[in-house]
């Protein structure tokens, strides 16, 4: 039980002190999980991290679940995962409650109209970064463009697009293998 609580607290510290999620969390995970508590080796952590990107959901949560499980089974997975989401939960609930009371003030509305422009630019930058990593050839370029156009023009739900993309990926790679 002691170690489970320590796991919760450690992952709560990781969740509460890293801004920007996912990738920003890696150095902190290395320090806490590998160097301080020795819950995983450097290689294991990199493995979890890599697979965390290949499983659905939030990468930081996936990594926490992996580390927790490998050390203490399912209870470990639950405590580590609960730890990593706990700070977000508390901080955001407070902000949401506070901001809801100020939403009607004109100055707050002007501020958020400005902030939305910034969000637009931040998303654009994120897309550029992801594009460089995910669009590696003509086929992935077509998939990117196709998904973008289909969702903008026809407003298709991503819940349909994602499974179709997975099937397309498998079909394309099987076909490429056969051609060789």
């Amino acid at each position: 039980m002691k170690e489970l609580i320590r796991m919760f607290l450690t992952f709560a510290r990781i969740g509460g002190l890293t801004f920007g999620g996912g990738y920003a969390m890696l150095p902190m995970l290395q320090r806490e999980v590998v160097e301080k508590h020795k819950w995983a080796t450097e290689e294991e952590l990199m493995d979890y991290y890599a697979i965390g990107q290949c499983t659905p959901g939030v990468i930081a949560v996936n990594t926490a679940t992996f580390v927790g499980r490998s050390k203490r089974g399912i209870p470990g997975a639950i405590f580590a995962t609960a730890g990593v989401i706990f700070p977000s939960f508390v901080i955001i609930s407070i902000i949401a409650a506070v901001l809801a009371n100020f939403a009607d003030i004109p100055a707050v509305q002007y501020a958020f109209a400005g902030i939305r422009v910034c969000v637009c630019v931040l998303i654009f930058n994120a897309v550029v970064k992801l594009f460089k990593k995910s669009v590696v050839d003509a086929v992935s370029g077509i998939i990117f463009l196709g998904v973008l156009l289909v969702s903008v023009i026809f407003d298709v739900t991503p819940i349909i697009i994602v499974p179709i993309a997975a099937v397309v990926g498998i079909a394309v790679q099987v076909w490429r293998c056969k051609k060789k």
Partner: protein
Amino acid sequence: MIYLQLFWEFFKTGLFAVGGGMATVPFLYDISARRGWFTEAQLADMIAVADSTPGPIGVNMATYVGYTSAGFFGSLIATLALVLPSVIVVLIVAKILQAFKENFYVKSAFFALRPASTGLIAAAGCTVAAISVLNIPLFRETGAILDILNIPALILAAVLLVLTNIKPVKKLHPVFFIVFSAVVGIVFKFGA
């Protein structure tokens, strides 16, 4: 029963959002369009808050959207529903770690899932652009093509685009750019 609906919507988001960070955003725009629990503008504000507070962006978004939709229990249910599929998938995958990593079908699926996820996020970006740097209601009213451009917002966007991509400044945390934009918004009365 909004709690059940919230659970179901966020479970699907957790299951299908691939690639972390902003990957949940397109799903949330989809929820906004279908359920009407929050507006597109509110969602853009929530992205700003989620990006400038500690913790994973996806989790922050779920908590915030849940709270906006159905108060404290809404945030609790949305957050748990978002992480539940990943916990289940990870617990299954952990047993076959190496086999999963090397699996041909998994690799092939992700070959397409990565650009698809990027495309979805780009589409969500277009939605934000439509409400932040364009002025579609004014254009519909006047019919003048130039009215569709929100000039002050476009200037701010251009400045931010440069600032977030030139060497010494781009390393700054997004919260600096968000605060800067808030100040510009107040000074120039954006959206008034």
